[in-house]
């Protein structure tokens, strides 16, 4: 292992070592403060470890992993997401009377899984990361064993996720059968001589496996049940980290293999995108359970994001499409994390399934939390001066450039419908009704840091997008 490779993979190494240390520490002596402190340190160290690799450019770190601009940026996003989740769970675990040791450990393991995926350039490392993430997440969802819904959610996710991974693996097997390769670049090279029926079938299977994790229609059915059952901070993690990592892999997969190219695959992907945008938003319309509502809205958002991937796979405007996808991913991540952070803190007192009416007048009772939730919703709705607006702006620009009118029409329709339920929620937030004031609303300072960071993030991406946009066009 040369020093370049070492430096490139340093974040993974740091995180892996930290996991071992945390596990030993738990075995030695259980102490919530120490465990969480170590985890916090581990995440920050991993972020610091990212910095020396920025100057290295493209690094082929073993046949399994690659380190480049995309992997660094997405790793940073994932580590920040994990950090936010950790900061939110600090007090929350105590409120819920849950053991913090295993929870923190599983969170770190899941984060490692996402990082492995982000760096993967080989089917083996991809599946390795995916399963590392998957197994940790099943457990995290079912972590509050006393809650029937949590266990139910965990079980549903386990069964369905296994089925989807089966599809993915079968697709990879077909790819191997057709090309004799598993490394992404190798697959791309052998593709010309491969049997098209096999490779298209394989692509569909891979897409189906990925679509499940991204909860794209018709692989979306699990989403509301699992989101609702999972403990709220875990839902936030699930809704962001696993999707971010998968999008990164799929971008790399399409870029290296060229399998997203081709009109038939494109039609299939476009259908998924349109169905997700329409059905996701329609499902969210009258939903009063907030976690289910956000689940449905995340279906729609993944549909929007898929527009960029469809265009990336199918046309020459590739660079802009990747930028659009990554930007949308950033906007979606920060807004979704913010929404779930607000719900976590509202739910802190034990209300694990808050409904719309519970938030009535939140803006007046807890201005900071209310503001956070409101800004998150505005961003998800794509209102100007928030991150979400810039994301949609990118997507519209890309679709217009690529003349993808059907996708654009679905995007417009979906956004129009979504405004109804986002604004209805905002109306609830500002309505002066303190019937629900019994909800406990203590904001511990660590969570406060996370809240402030998210708020600044959403607004900064919306008001001053120039810097990040320049960064994206430089590294992607």
């Amino acid at each position, binding site marked *: 292992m040369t020093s370049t490779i070492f430096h490139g993979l340093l974040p993974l190494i740091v995180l892996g070592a930290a996991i071992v240390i945390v596990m030993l520490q738990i075995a030695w002596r259980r102490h919530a403060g120490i465990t969480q402190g170590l985890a916090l340190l581990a995440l920050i160290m991993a972020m610091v470890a990212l910095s020396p690799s920025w100057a290295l450019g493209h690094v082929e770190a073993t046949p399994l992993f690659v380190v480049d601009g995309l992997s660094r940026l997405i790793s940073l996003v994932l580590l920040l997401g994990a950090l936010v989740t950790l900061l939110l769970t600090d007090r929350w675990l105590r409120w819920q009377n849950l053991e913090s040791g295993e929870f923190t450990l599983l969170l770190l393991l899941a984060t490692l899984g996402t990082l492995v995926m982000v760096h993967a350039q080989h089917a083996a490392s991809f599946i390795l990361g995916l399963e590392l993430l998957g197994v940790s997440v099943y457990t995290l969802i079912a972590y509050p064993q006393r809650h029937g819904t949590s266990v139910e959610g965990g079980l549903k996710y386990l069964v369905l996720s296994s089925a989807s991974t089966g599809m993915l693996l079968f697709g990879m097997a077909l790819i191997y059968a057709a090309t004799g390769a598993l490394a992404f670049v190798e697959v791309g090279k052998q593709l010309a001589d491969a049997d098209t029926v096999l490779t298209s079938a394989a692509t*569909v299977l891979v897409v189906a496996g990925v679509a499940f994790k991204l909860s794209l229609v*018709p692989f979306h059915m699990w989403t509301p049940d699992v989101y609702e059952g999972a403990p709220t901070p875990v839902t936030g993690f699930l809704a962001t980290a696993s999707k971010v990592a998968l999008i990164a892999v799929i971008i790399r997969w399409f870029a290296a293999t060229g399998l997203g190219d081709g009109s038939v695959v494109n039609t299939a992907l476009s259908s*998924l995108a349109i169905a997700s945008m329409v059905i996701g938003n329609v499902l969210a319309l009258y939903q009063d359970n907030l976690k289910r509502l956000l689940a449905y809205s995340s279906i729609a958002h993944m549909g929007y994001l898929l527009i960029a991937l469809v265009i990336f796979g199918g046309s020459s405007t590739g660079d*802009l499409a990747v930028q659009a996808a990554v930007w949308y991913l950033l906007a979606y991540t920060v807004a979704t994390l913010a929404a779930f952070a607000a719900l976590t803190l509202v739910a802190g007192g034990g209300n694990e399934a808050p409904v719309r009416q519970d938030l009535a007048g939140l803006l007046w009772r807890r201005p900071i939390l209310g503001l956070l939730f409101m800004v998150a919703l505005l961003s998800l709705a794509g209102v100007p001066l928030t991150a979400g607006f810039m994301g949609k702006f990118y997507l519209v620009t890309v679709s217009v450039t690529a003349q993808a009118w059907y996708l654009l029409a679905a995007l417009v329709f979906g956004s129009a419908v979504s405004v109804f339920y986002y604004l209805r929620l905002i109306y609830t937030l500002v309505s002066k009704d303190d019937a629900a004031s019994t909800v406990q609303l203590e904001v511990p300072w660590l969570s406060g840091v996370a809240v402030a960071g998210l708020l600044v993030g959403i607004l900064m991406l919306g008001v001053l*997008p*120039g810097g990040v946009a320049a960064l994206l066009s430089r590294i992607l």
Partner: protein
Amino acid sequence: MLSQLILVPTFPLLSATLLLLVGRQMPRPLVTLLGVGSIGAAALTVVLLLPQWLANPEPVTVLLWQWFAVANFSIDVALYLDQLSIIWLCTITGIGFLIHLYSSEYMAGDSDYARYFAYLNLFVASMLVLVLADNLLLLFLGWEGVGLCSYLLIGFWYQDSTNGAAARKAFVVTRAGDAAMALGLFLLVAELNTLDIKAVTGAAQAQWSAGSTLPTLACALLFIGAVGKSAQLPLQTWLPDAMAGPTPVSALIHAATMVTAGIYLLARLNGLFVLAPDVMTVIAWVGVTTALMAAFAALTQFDIKRILAYSTISQLGYMFLALGIGAWDAGVMHMMTHAFFKALLFLAAGAVIACLHHEQDIRRMGGLRRTLVIPFWSFLIGSAALAALPFTAGFASKDLILLMAWASGEQGKWLWSLAALGALITALYSFKLIFVVFFGVPKTEPNHQPGWRMSIPLTILAALSIGGGLIALPLRDVLPLPNYEAEHGLVAWISAAIPIAGVIAAFVLFQRNGIASIAAVRSNLGHWLAAFWRSGWGMDTLYDRLLVQPYKRLAHWWRHEPVDVAVRLIMWVVSRSHWTVAATQNGQLARYVTVMVLGLILMLALVVRTPT
């Protein structure tokens, strides 16, 4: 260089934010300090920047940040300072500060003190953004901000529903103009692919020939926007009703902000407007017609503030006349002098009103020259400037407009005649106000005297209303010169004599009560005409009959029109489909797996059907 420029709009914006968020909890002195101090700080910044800029008077662009740049279309957030914007900058911050200082006494008894200053600061901040904007999108942001703040301030005493109605009217009427302006901006973006003001002007001059369709259309749309904001025919009806707000707000709307935005837009885009000579002609005629009609309307009002409101509409008409005939610098100069004397008149009127138990009807005033000394002298100087008597600031600018009008081409004589008639009426009504309110028999006794925070702004503004005409505006570099010279000779003497004649007529008619002896005034026709003018030429009734009532009737009659049905249908379809798809989420794992597998099979069928 000049990066401190950002501070100018930042101070008021920051203070407005603070006051809106925590103003209620602040002690009053702190609110005053923030509210007045922020504008003071902005004015001070301008004063400090001025010598630095004058040392090297080149246009400066201060790029703050790039909002976004996607696929060769970018929007910068940048401030632009040149000779034109610096005039507005000085006017807005200078007069704005005096009005704020005055407000701190005028509004001292109001329970919503902090909210008042928050809106007022936001108003000034929006106007500053408008005049400093480097591109039309940022300008539009300021433009709409000004519209919003005017709505908030006109309806400041919202407890009285008529004030709310006036605010709504101002908002809706100016919105009609704004819609046209937005269309104009869309047209510019679509055709020129930029919103940067310099680039727009440059590209327009490169791509479009003078008098062709596109520049005419774009300028016409932008002009309609300016008409709405600057209360010109036919969108002037909101301004007299806007008197519902506190008097200092009227001073701010009429003098330093809001209504001069239309003038600014036209002057700023002069490079575009010279490409549309037809629109320029329309501007001149709209201006002079408005000037004349509003002057007649002002003559017959009883409410002291409404007189001043109509006089603003009339004076703005003169500015548009000047812009329309290509005398850009005269128009801008009149904007500035008008800002001085109109602020003075409104603040003096506010002092009279406040000292007379909120009495606004001039028929119940009289003989106040001995009891309210400072307001009297302020009013006298302000009226003299408004009437454009020689040796006042108003004379310097308005006389120039008249003489330029005479010299401007074939229609010049007609424009001059109407404008001169307007000037006569202006002198008549402004001195009618003086004679009725300050001379004659005292009818209502003042209950107190204005304090120093009201008197100092009045004194400064009075000085500016006299000497302000001597300020030499460095406009030659940024505005195109007219291709003709101002008229000299006999016409110049006549133009200067007209206001004096007006004052003498006012003396005879209203001080010597000559009006009572004129039979025509007492006739039925005279009464009808006076009432007609008083109602602003019946415009409100006309619009009510012509637009509002038919629209309401149409809406009532056509409640189930196809568009409605279509909208309802969409609603119905979407909510029905919600319940349909929501029913699929039954929580059963078996169902979920089935749907997944079916989806997979469908996709496979789609992809694998054609082995080639």
